[in-house]
């Protein structure tokens, strides 16, 4: 690939010698010889296996839990319930002051999604743990559930998560994240055309080849080493420390090698409970999701719904954009309030639009909690926005790429968040793309520059 040195020559440092060079991955020799050690490649004598008893209901009150039969099952060493967890209600982002704590490590009094962990069984073998888990008796009173975001936001909808008190996350800006710029209604009034479209996505499972899990080894002196495939080492260490009410100095986390993740391994689900099991039994513990659990229990990318209304002029200028975004967090927050917030920042797109109005909601439903995944909060939004851009171009009979040149933000433009654009380079990227894709655009667009002075 050729490195174009003519662009932004006065802004760019020269002497770059890595771009365009192939560099072997440092961990590749281990991968091709089978020597790379993933967490499950650590095996300790006397290791116990942990299996979860999971909720078969989307929403239910727990009347009682009876572990007496399960405890008698041969090979069972310990059964953990909510009352064994020192700080049972947590939320991952509390570390950056995003609360309230809204999720239980083991269900306490209620389950809010099908698959929620209720009881943890530790046994000598995987099979014994599974058989004993089947003997745990949980008496549920099934409650009405809600699976649709707009239903969840209606008055009188079943309340999913009492820790929030309503079925949406409460930001400091109110029930949603908001962007207000210019006067969107005035923009629509002057527009030649208005196009309102709704875009919707389903949850998407990451499906890493290596399933989520960890192996914990007690080191004596009340210290524990946890081999894990987390993608968020310090979130996991610090949250484990809160959940277990143990100083971080007692917890030694070993990670780094992750057998695929894509964001799906940033939640703190397996480590705290496995460490707790090791603490109670004094034995090493392995907690690893089966493939079935990985597909059904691990957090997916959130389902999203995006309503975009644009006002456009015949000459191609977008003069108003109104977006309402909904992110389906499922039953618990995890990373979703942040995902919805990213959406609010993203919906103006890389375009200069004088009138913008955006609301994004993080909504709770009785579905599997969603969380991080590759650009979560913006990827579905980008899909929706760019499909919308193509539709707008078609509406006014303009080439879709030329339409983007007209609206692309350029250096010095004020963005809807009141941050002036700097170093945009979008025009230059589109010019390169037009050449590479053999998609010709009119000469005047090829003569444009992200520097306003360049035309």
């Amino acid at each position, binding site marked *: 690939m050729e490195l174009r040195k003519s662009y932004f020559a006065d802004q760019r440092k020269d002497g770059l010698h890595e771009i365009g060079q192939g560099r072997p991955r440092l961990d590749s020799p281990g*991968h*091709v*010889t*089978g020597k790379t*050690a993933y967490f499950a490649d650590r095996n300790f004598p006397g290791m116990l296996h942990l299996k979860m008893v999971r909720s078969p209901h989307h929403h239910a009150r727990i009347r009682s839990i009876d572990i007496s039969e399960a405890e008698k099952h041969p090979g069972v060493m310990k059964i953990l319930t909510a009352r064994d967890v020192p700080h049972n209600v947590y939320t991952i982002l509390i570390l950056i002051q995003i609360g309230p704590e809204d999720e239980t490590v083991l269900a306490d009094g209620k389950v809010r999604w099908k698959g929620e962990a209720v009881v943890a069984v530790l046994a000598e073998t995987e099979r014994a743990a599974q058989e004993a888990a089947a003997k745990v008796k949980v008496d549920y009173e099934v409650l009405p559930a809600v699976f649709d975001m707009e239903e969840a936001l209606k008055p009188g909808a079943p309340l999913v998560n009492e820790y929030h008190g309503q079925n949406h996350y409460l930001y400091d800006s109110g029930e949603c994240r908001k962007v207000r710029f210019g006067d969107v209604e005035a923009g629509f009034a002057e527009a030649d055309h208005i196009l309102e479209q709704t875009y919707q996505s389903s949850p998407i499972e990451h499906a*890493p*080849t290596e399933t989520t899990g960890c192996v914990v080894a007690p080191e004596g002196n009340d210290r524990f080493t946890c081999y894990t495939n987390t993608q968020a080492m310090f979130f996991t260490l610090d949250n484990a420390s809160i959940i277990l009410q143990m100083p971080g100095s007692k917890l030694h986390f070993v990670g780094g090698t992750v057998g*695929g993740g*894509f964001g799906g391994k940033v939640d703190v689900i397996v480590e705290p409970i496995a460490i707790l099991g090791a603490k109670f039994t004094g034995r090493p513990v392995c907690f690893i999701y089966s493939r079935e659990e990985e597909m059904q229990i691990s957090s997916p990318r959130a389902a999203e719904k995006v309503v975009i209304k644009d006002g456009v002029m015949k000459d191609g200028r977008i003069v108003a954009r109104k977006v309402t975004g909904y992110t389906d967090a499922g039953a618990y927050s995890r990373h979703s309030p942040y995902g919805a917030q990213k959406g609010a920042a993203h919906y103006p797109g890389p375009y200069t639009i004088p009138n913008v109005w955006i609301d994004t909601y993080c909504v709770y439903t009785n579905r599997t909690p969603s969380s991080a995944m590759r650009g979560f909060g913006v990827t579905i939004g980008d899909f929706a926005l760019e499909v919308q851009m193509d539709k707008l171009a078609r509406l006014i009979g303009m080439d879709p790429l030329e339409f983007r040149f007209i609206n692309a933000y350029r250096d010095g433009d004020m963005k809807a968040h009141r941050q002036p654009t700097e170093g945009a380079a979008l025009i230059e990227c589109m010019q390169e793309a037009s050449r590479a894709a053999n998609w010709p655009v009119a000469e005047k667009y090829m003569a444009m520059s992200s520097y306003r002075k360049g035309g």
Partner: protein
Amino acid sequence: MVKVPVQFTLNGSEKAELIDSGATLLHALRDKIGDTSPKGGCHQGTCGACSVIIDGELRLSCLTLAETCNGAVIRTTAGLAEGGVLHPLQRAFLDAFATQCGFCTPGMIMAAKVLLDRTPNPSREEVVEALSGNICRCTGYEPIIQAVLTAARANSQNVA
């Protein structure tokens, strides 16, 4: 639990183990013998991460009972490099950026080896077909296919 004695040759050395009857070869290799190069991705025969070579055939060790392997000759990726020199397939995977997280890699390499042992100069379609039982979620299949084709070329040059 009934224990059964199992003997086989693993990457050239004799192994004798007492294994729980009904245990998989994947379990025996990883947890008893300590060869963790075959990976467990699904334990249900769909991902190929646990692939090994038994008597020249590509097999899923998660679906193979250890006790059926008496007297077998088993190869895994851990035993592929000879005298510290990488096998051409390993070299090609390394050079072609055909590993990302690496979890699928040992299984991929086993599947590719069985192909090249039988078809030293495969077509692209034959490579695709041979790897079709192995799932990779990270790398994308194109670099992997290219690595196998490159290894095949390197092989035929050595022979020539």
